[in-house]
């Protein structure tokens, strides 16, 4: 009796470990996409709803590089990120900058329109099918305690850590990073001290589209990709950014991881039907109760 209880307890522990590990790797993706949202928000005050589409572009462009250009994976990834970055640049130049009197509502509608356009073009170019790209280093599961993960999960976690560290370095130790932070504090003051605010806006779009694309690439071997994956991932990334109070630092990362783990635990322990609902309930709760984010003070530094 006691023995069976023990083994049952162990089983529960294994299960929970599995839920947490799965949640962390999904959460890392949400975090990357979320940071993309925050970078643009901080530089421009825009919520860029086209962010999810760059995630989609990353995955599908890698597919094209691999299958049609026959590039090896280490060349295909930078290539796809570069093309996505150019797409982000064009998006800012052609859709955001020409706006004479940018009001928040105009900009939001433009980004939504942009996302529909990008998705439509992707559908024409890549078709409606789902595509898969190979894992970076095999598919043999790795056991951790009673749980298992794939090598790709390690890639996801590793690359996320690298990107976030690089991000931190950029914002705190480079001139253009500091300039971008200055824009986030006060655009007018930044422009008065000679910072080219428009260029910073352009940079913010390029950085976040590159990050979105990278997220799309590292997740594609696990989840597959198609022209419409950006919608849901974009929304989840947005939730992560809101939980993190639109910070482009560690708060959004924690927001993403928290969201991923809660989703996974919710699906495993309560019911899988509520998985997406958990994300959106969290989003609403945060917006109602702590609009400054889970960790934010009322008027905190956002970069």
């Amino acid at each position: 009796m006691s023995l069976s209880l023990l083994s049952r307890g162990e089983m529960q522990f294994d299960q929970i470990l599995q839920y947490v590990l799965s949640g962390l790797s999904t959460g890392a993706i949400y975090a990357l996409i979320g940071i993309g949202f925050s970078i643009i928000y901080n530089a421009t005050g825009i919520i860029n709803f086209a962010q999810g589409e760059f995630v989609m572009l990353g995955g599908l462009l890698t597919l094209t590089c691999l299958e049609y250009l026959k590039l090896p994976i280490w060349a295909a990834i930078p290539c796809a990120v570069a093309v996505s970055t150019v797409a982000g640049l064009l998006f800012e130049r052609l859709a955001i900058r020409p706006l004479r009197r940018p009001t928040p509502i105009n900009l939001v509608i433009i980004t939504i329109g942009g996302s529909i356009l990008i998705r439509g073009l992707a559908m024409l170019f890549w078709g409606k099918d789902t595509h898969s790209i190979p894992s970076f280093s095999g598919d043999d599961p790795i056991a951790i305690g009673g749980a298992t993960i794939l090598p790709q999960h390690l890639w996801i976690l590793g690359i996320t850590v690298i990107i976030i560290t690089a991000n931190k370095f950029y914002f705190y130790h480079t001139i253009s990073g500091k300039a971008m932070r200055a824009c986030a504090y006060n655009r007018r003051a930044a422009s008065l001290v000679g910072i080219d605010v428009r260029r910073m806006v352009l940079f913010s779009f390029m950085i976040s589209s590159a990050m979105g694309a990278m997220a799309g690439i590292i997740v594609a071997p696990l989840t597959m990709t198609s022209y419409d994956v950006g919608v849901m991932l974009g929304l989840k990334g947005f939730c992560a950014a809101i939980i993190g109070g639109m910070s482009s630092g560690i708060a959004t990362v924690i927001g993403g991881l928290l969201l991923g783990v809660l989703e996974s635990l919710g699906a495993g322990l309560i019911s899988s039907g509520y998985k997406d609902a958990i994300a959106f309930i969290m989003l609403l709760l945060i917006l109602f109760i702590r609009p400054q984010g889970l960790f934010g003070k009322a008027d905190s530094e956002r970069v």
Partner: protein
Amino acid sequence: MNRSLISLLFAAVTMLFSANAFAAAPIKIGALFAITGPAAFLGEPERNSAKMVIDEINRAGGVKGRKLELVAYDTAGDATKAVQLATRLIKDDKVVAIIGPSTTGETMAVIPVAERGQVPLISCSAGSKITDPVKKWVFKTAQNDSLAVGRIFDYLQKHKLHNVSILTVSDGFGASGREQLKAQASKFGIKIVSDDTYGPKDTDMTAQLTKIRGSHAQAVICWGTNPGPAVIAKNVRQLGIKTPVFMSHGVSSKKFIELAGDAAEGIMLPSGKVVVADQLSNSDQQKKSLLSFVKDYQNHYKTEGDHFGGHAWDAVMLIKSAVEKGADSPQAIRDNLEKTKGFAGIGGIFNYSAQDHAGLGKDAFVLVEVKNRDWVIVK
């Protein structure tokens, strides 16, 4: 040339043309497919197949000297749109029969329109409720879900696997499969030990599968359409789940194997015979239709024909044979359709009757397994 001669000539020419026009008046067949939208994986091959086979019939001189004309509209998987387009097909285009729609939800919405307009409707969707109870004007070519479920349970019963976990997608297809799985289980002495769902766009199902791993199930049955099942196959492999895994006929195309890769190996599912056409014994009545469909589709569209396209192929051929037997009005076509006996199509061997407008038996499905990235019939 005097005037009367000219007018005579004119009259003669007019008559000649109108006579020609009369002989060539095509028989209009309407079609409603979800060519775009979430059900595009159904609608696109259906539209392609219907177009292909009608072109072929016309190239061979049509049916009894009359050409067939396909009037196909895109419903985008939207029931409201499907109803509007069905009305348009009947009122404006004056079609003699309608093929489609692609999904069960749309079909249920269109049925009243077809009944009011008294035009036969041959649905390409799988839901059992389309023809149960039998409706005078409604037929279907897609195999009922219940047949697919029966195929899996047959196997489980034979191999004494009594405890199963089910994991179904939370859309119409998954809901209908889940209903059938639960309804038929007791009949086969099978107990459903866990019942989970996932969202059509979910990208990680390890949470549900971890729960299933802890449930002592002897088999896992997953009901969904791409890409979900491919994700599940990968997750199953990651978690090291060793019990047999079954999928639904919703993924019986090469696309699934391509997406799931090595993780697809060993997965079994009930499928229309089209994916294993070349493995069928020569005595199989469907073999000839299947091979020609596969070959034609490959030639036309440079991609593998699947059983979704097959549903539209069957529908066109059923209408064709009704017309061959001398029908050209909606009423006569309906009556001839109901008399269809032993038509060996893509989905199976159709035997319609006044009591049965689904027309297929259990032999419409074979159980197939993925071996070396290809389908193999499970004996």
